[in-house]
């Protein structure tokens, strides 16, 4: 998705834009606020990767069918490929880059390493964000419930058994 080359929009931006105008949006990513001039048709996923260079979040299908693009919106997992960046002015977004604190990995990240919960790693950042959301919600308890809650994250390498084991351990640790 190419950005438009049109001049930046003025103050009334979120009321209306002409077709080639960019919109001003303040994205609150991993605790840092960034003001962007952005074409309204830019997905949150493309804004993260192409504008903010946060490439930890992956583009798999770009159609909501794989979960590689999962990020946390106010702590809840969503597909960044099916939402527009302009719609999230000032909303707290956490990507995989925002999970580690003070140089130590998030317990879910550590559990994924300990349990060898990936092969190629392409789905992993999405899996981890979903798992963090799952633990925060605290609804899934059994293996069946973990699997069902995580079903929006496809792993083409088939690392599922280890992913479930990693989540079970991280759940106990948190």
């Amino acid at each position: 998705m190419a950005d438009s080359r049109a001049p930046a929009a003025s103050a009334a931006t979120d009321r209306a834009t002409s077709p080639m105008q960019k919109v001003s949006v303040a994205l609150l990513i991993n605790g840092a606020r960034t003001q962007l001039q952005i074409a309204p048709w830019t997905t949150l996923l493309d804004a993260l990767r192409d504008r903010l260079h946060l490439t930890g979040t992956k583009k798999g299908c770009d159609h909501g069918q794989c979960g590689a693009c999962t990020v946390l919106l106010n702590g809840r997992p969503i597909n960044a490929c099916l939402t527009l960046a302009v719609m999230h002015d000032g909303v707290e977004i956490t990507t995989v880059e925002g999970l580690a604190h003070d140089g130590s990995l998030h317990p879910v990240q550590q559990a994924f390493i300990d349990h060898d919960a990936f092969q190629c790693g392409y789905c992993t950042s999405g899996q981890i964000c979903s798992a963090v959301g799952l633990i925060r919600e605290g609804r899934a308890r059994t293996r069946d419930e973990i699997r069902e809650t995580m079903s929006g994250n496809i792993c083409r390498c088939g690392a599922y058994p280890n992913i479930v084991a990693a989540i079970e351990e991280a759940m106990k640790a948190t």
Partner: protein
Amino acid sequence: MNNFQYSRAQDVADAVRQSAADSSARFIAGGTNLVDLMKYDVERPARLIDISHLPLRAVEETPDGGLRIGALVPNSDLAWHPRVKDRYPLLSSAILAGASTQLRNMASTGGNLLQRTRCLYFYDVATSCNKRKPGTGCSAIGGINRINAILGTSDACIATHPSDMSVALTALDATVHATGPHGARTIPMTDFHRLPGDMPERDTNLGADEIVTAVELPAHGFRSNYTYLKIRDRLSYAFALVSVAVALEIDDGTIRQARLALGGVAHKPWRDPEAEAALIGQPIAQDTFARAAHIILRDAKGYGHNDFKIDLARRSIMRALNQAAQGTPQSQSDKRIA
């Protein structure tokens, strides 16, 4: 995705005004269907009216004991809402049978009702499709139609409506609240979606400039004897081939009230008053169930690849009626079919 103008609606009246001023505008709520369709060039709106910030997020008790659900309540919040889980578990179950955690977190109540068909040809702009481009023909008739409809079809379109939530809302006799240029009105769920007829481009009876503001559930929630049984190609994160919502009121072994709604088989959630009448006043018995299944499927018609759906629907109805009658609703996490 095409370039478009983006604006935020300030309130419901403003949303309606903006929509009426631009016939190619679309409302965007969760965006999980609209953005997807825009990426395929199926939808090319000149303007997106962002309604996601409107204050339509409440789940409130109504004076007559029902529940009023704001159009922007996310699917996940609705499914896990204590009142819904407790009093309308059929609705909760149907929502949790659909899509994925991520999608349900974004998807709105209104958007779920108004999501469009998953017919393969509707998505493929290189093919003919009367729903996408009226008058071009229907590629699914005589084409790959494994997921298409077996009931209420027309020569113009054999698409299904893909929503799970809508099947439960239809079974529960919910009503949709809408506001348009001429004011507010309510539409029963049973009349909200329509059959394709010779106007398959219209999915629903909602007016072009109308916005859904809420969905209302009546007081009776069928909390004891219900099930939502969804049959699909994989156990999660897949659309229904056939789904069955059942809600029964049973008194001393006799069925007093019955609701039976099918998903994945028609252009709208499918209910049949005669099939429900055949259950009412009857004992819980296999031949009672078989009669109801026979009636609701009596006009079913396959188109080749989807012929299997007729038998699948019949068996699923039998299974679902038994689950509901026994008070053992289908679990949406333990996938074994009880």
